[in-house]
């Protein structure tokens, strides 16, 4: 049953990749998969994965702002933005490794691990494809999508 649920969710991602409504639907489906991976087995350890999903885009935003990416006039400090990229990559892999380590230690079951990882794939998929949908138009320079994330 969990395998079919994951399959249906991944199929939805391929179907609904055209609209913002579909994107938010896929995001909700990803969170549903993560919560179901805890609730179906009565074991709430995989919920710690959600913390990495929340923390992953945070260094990019904070460090990019501090490095002066938004402000054209200030001198751009690349090293600070790089630290943000590094921490984001670290958080993303942590989100995938945590269920694997929990399952390897026997704390959670393997189907719960698979559900948690596929939920993480859906959530990261939406946050990765988000720039293709939200295209901001700046009337001075033309259209561009946001390059972060």
């Amino acid at each position, binding site marked *: 049953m969990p395998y079919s649920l994951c399959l249906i969710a991944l199929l939805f991602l391929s179907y609904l990749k055209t609209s913002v409504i579909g994107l938010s639907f896929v995001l909700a489906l990803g969170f549903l998969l993560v919560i179901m991976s805890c609730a179906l087995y009565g074991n709430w350890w995989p919920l710690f994965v959600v913390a990495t999903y929340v923390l992953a885009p945070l260094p990019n935003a904070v460090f990019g702002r501090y490095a002066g990416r938004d402000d054209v006039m200030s001198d*751009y400090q690349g090293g600070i933005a790089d630290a943000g990229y590094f921490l984001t*990559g670290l958080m*993303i*892999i*942590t989100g995938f*490794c945590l269920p694997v380590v929990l399952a*390897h230690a026997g704390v959670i079951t393997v189907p719960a691990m698979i559900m948690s990882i596929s939920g993480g794939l859906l959530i990261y998929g939406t946050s990765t494809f988000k720039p293709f949908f939200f295209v901001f138009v700046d009337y001075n320079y033309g259209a561009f999508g946001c390059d972060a994330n």
Partner: protein
Amino acid sequence: MSTQWNLSDRQKRICLFPMPRIPRLGPKARDAAIYISGALFALGWWFFIDAVIRSKNWNYDDGPKHASVSFVDWVPGICSTVGMLVINLIDKGALRGDSFSFSSNGGGTSVAWKARVFLFVGFAFMAGGLAGSVSVLCIKYLLPNYGKIFTSWGISNVIQNGSLMASAAILWVAQSTESEYQYNFAI
């Protein structure tokens, strides 16, 4: 960046054969390389944490527990991480030493010289970490021939230090192409 390793300055070169150039990446590839570097860092540490957890929760139905992950296994990873920090905290511009503000001709205080000593210490930490993980694998797990599960703990230690080294290498290549992107963005 073209004068890195003093390639353009033929008189100052030390080695007979020119050193290979570090490849220059575009802005997108540079960001992707830093993401990959962070991912490798996390992956290495998670391999080790997995081994630690399995050693702690040893299931005695699998047989007697001959060896466990102790502080000796932590030392190579800590060395690699400290070395990676030291390497990446150095300003890459200070290593070149071709700018007059960074090097003083014949003077006692040269910033480039200090930066190179720091770089050497960092690389020594990283190489020591990798060599230490291999020696822990051989001496603690492989030579007594405990069995497959115990050997996997040592192998995960080697994987940890290898991926930390790969992470530092990718980060080095990415950070050496900094100034171009900075210039493009400032315009």
